[in-house]
């Protein structure tokens, strides 16, 4: 099979969409399914939680076509490497896939990553054959360490999870892009379509978001906006923007002006 143009390859799998979408916080499973469809995403994140023994047995996966999407189970809510590793092992058993979004949180208020625990967990998981996509700080040193450990991508935050503040430090993202060779995916912080486009224009391989879509007044419309923004941002990056200049540069010819 020849590789089609401009696809994203993670862990040996090829994807045409560069938008990854979470499945939390939607009003219903129907809405989740419609938003996913509209987003064009091929990788979707899920969380691992206890089966609720008292309630209806209806589950998210009843609404998701598993032939269409690659599940990316997360370790949300884990504050230690041990808990994150345990969650990943359970996820692999439940989903029969090696893909994991590894997050080890350091603090409940900011949900910033605990990079020390993150590195510890990444090392164990890579050794156990997982395809590890770590949510991390926008710190090139941490990203390089994660790459060296064998992570399949790095996923620096644009801003705190669910904050919608956008890409707060585009220069850090640029430095990461210049210094790691695995795909760089901005994970967390995106609030609007322009934020997603900015991440892509910086040269990121993809963007991962949940709240920006699920929390929008019309999640289905926002899912489409994000799909288009990621495509537009990617095209803009590849097209190569003009340099920024302080003064004007006329677009119309100066010759032939009426006298």
């Amino acid at each position: 099979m020849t590789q089609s143009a401009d696809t994203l390859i993670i862990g040996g799998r090829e994807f045409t969409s560069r938008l990854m979408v979470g499945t939390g916080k939607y009003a219903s499973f129907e809405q989740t399914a419609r938003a996913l469809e509209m987003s064009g995403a091929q990788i979707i994140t899920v969380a691992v939680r206890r089966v609720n023994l008292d309630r209806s047995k209806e589950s998210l996966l009843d609404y998701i076509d598993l032939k269409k999407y690659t599940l990316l189970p997360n370790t949300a809510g884990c504050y230690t490497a041990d808990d994150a590793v345990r969650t990943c092992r359970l996820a692999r058993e439940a989903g029969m896939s090696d893909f994991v979004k590894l997050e080890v949180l350091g603090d409940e208020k900011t949900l910033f990553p605990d990079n020390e625990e993150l590195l510890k967990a990444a090392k164990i998981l890579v050794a156990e054959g997982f395809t590890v996509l770590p949510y991390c700080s926008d710190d090139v040193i941490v990203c390089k360490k994660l790459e060296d450990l064998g992570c399949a991508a790095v996923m620096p935050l644009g801003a705190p999870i669910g904050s919608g503040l956008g890409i707060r430090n585009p220069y850090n993202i640029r430095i990461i892009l210049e210094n790691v060779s695995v795909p760089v995916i901005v994970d967390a912080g995106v609030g609007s379509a322009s934020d997603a486009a900015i991440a892509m224009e910086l040269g990121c391989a993809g963007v991962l978001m949940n709240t920006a879509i699920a929390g929008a007044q019309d999640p289905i419309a926002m899912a489409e906006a994000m799909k288009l923004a990621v495509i537009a941002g990617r095209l803009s990056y590849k097209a190569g923007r003009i340099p920024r200049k302080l003064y004007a540069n006329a677009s119309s010819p100066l010759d032939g002006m009426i006298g």
Partner: protein
Amino acid sequence: MRIVLNGDSVETADGCTVGELLQQLGISRERVAVELNADIVPKVDYDRRPLSDGDKIEIVHFVGGG
């Protein structure tokens, strides 16, 4: 005998296997993972792994998340 199922103490039949427990609970085995005393139970072992009094069982699945 009593086991601790997802944090709650419950009564179950002596010698009940993981597979029988899932069946009693009406849980489809394809989309869950089971931990017995902090070790994963592979799906192929569900029907041959009997539970003992005091065992701690966790049954998890995927839910919406980011």
